[in-house]
């Protein structure tokens, strides 16, 4: 928003979306809050329709919604991971980006331009144990990124991934010590905060990245390497 974009805040938590949108508007920007479950095709289509109705176009999509490691997550080896946990995480983290891309692509193709960012995870590069559903979903996101990049490049659409490390995004839910466990592994030894990711996202949303597509960049202070 600080860079001048009109932002649609799409979240399954409608109240959270409204608060974020209000914050953008209070800062002098334009925003629209939409309640959406990204794993539901009807709702992702409605999200796109609401955006077109309000702003008449879609330039960018950040597929950020995910069941993260911290939220009601079962840590278990593969043979003990409940099958419904696998399905639940894949439905949101992998099917979600697929459905959101599917919904916005016709509009981007019509305009001959578009910027898609998928949020992957450093855990894919590290093979982090006991969260196979999460890591597989994020590896799937990188695969989706690559194929979609090849399919959509002719239409002037770029598709790239940002892979964060563990980021202190829910400080009210988790103790600070939870985030600090990752610090010793990093080249830059401090807790990762959401603002560390914003510069890369602005780059991928701007014309500065118009010839970069299908790629994944890790932003985690130098733990995993790609």
């Amino acid at each position, binding site marked *: 928003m600080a860079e001048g974009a009109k932002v649609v805040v799409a979240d399954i938590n409608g109240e959270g979306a409204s608060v974020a949108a209000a914050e953008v508007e209070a800062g002098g920007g334009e925003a629209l809050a939409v309640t959406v479950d990204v794993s539901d095709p009807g709702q992702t289509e409605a999200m796109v329709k609401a955006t077109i109705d309000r702003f008449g176009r879609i330039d960018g999509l950040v597929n950020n919604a995910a069941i993260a490691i911290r939220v009601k997550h079962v840590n278990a080896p593969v043979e003990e991971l409940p099958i419904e946990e696998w399905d639940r995480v894949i439905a949101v983290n992998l099917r979600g980006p697929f459905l959101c891309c599917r919904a916005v692509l016709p509009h981007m193709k019509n305009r001959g331009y578009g910027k898609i960012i998928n949020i992957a995870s450093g855990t894919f590069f590290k093979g982090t144990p006991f969260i196979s559903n999460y890591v597989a979903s994020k590896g799937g996101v990188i695969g989706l990124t690559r194929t979609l990049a090849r399919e959509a490049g002719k239409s002037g659409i770029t598709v790239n991934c940002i892979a964060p490390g563990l980021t202190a995004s829910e400080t009210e839910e988790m103790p600070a010590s939870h985030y600090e466990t990752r610090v010793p592994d990093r080249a830059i030894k401090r807790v990762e905060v959401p603002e560390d990711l914003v*510069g890369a996202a602005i780059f991928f949303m701007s014309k500065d990245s118009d010839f970069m*597509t*299908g*790629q994944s960049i890790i932003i985690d202070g130098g733990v995993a390497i790609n």
Partner: protein
Amino acid sequence: MSRLDGRVIIVTGGGQGIGRAFALGFAKEGAKVAIADINGPAAESVAAEIGEAGGEALAVVTDVSSEESTKEMAAAVIERWGRIDGLMNNAAFFQRPQITNGPIEEIPVDEWDRVMAVNLKGPFLCCRAVIGQMKEQKYGKIVNISSGTVFSGRSILHYVASKGGVTAFTRVLAKQSGDWNITVNSIAPGLTASDPDKDEAIYEGRVAARSIPRVEEPEDLVGAGIFLMSSESDFMTGQTMVVDGGAVMH
């Protein structure tokens, strides 16, 4: 405010091609740019171009394969501006027909040595020359130019091996430099139309393999260079960004 306001950045091989595009792009974002090139008149010409546009630049004749020359480069920049915020290791030995594109048994051994001396020892020496200053500042941005060929394994054995070395070098130096808030990353371009004298067909030949099917221009790389030189990438280190229109995927 521009994204590189007040930053002092060295661009090796800044006298032509991709290096020139980076130098002009950085200056436009407010950086003071040292054009370090073995070709003095080319460096002077780019520095003058920046000066005419209202920017600040310094031309330094530099052979990146000479330790003494890289030390002089760093000293000249510190003398002029008192600091070094960024180093872009762009200078490389690449131009055909000077470089042999053939099977291993046809690559002259002294040519292998020369490619390694410029493309791999060059970044080593340049980083070695500036890192003390960056550590003192507790801040620095190093960007190495690698190549998409590292991922495709496509032709020119010694050149690709040197660029693979650059990517590995990036990773280790990143791990070693984080305590001083020095980030070290690479940009891996595809074949870029940086030599206007070259046959167009060479560049056109790469188009079909790309997601975005067109010739790559030096300007296509500038945005990534600015990102990696700016505070926007301060928590990103050890990484390689492929900017090639989506030919290889990394």
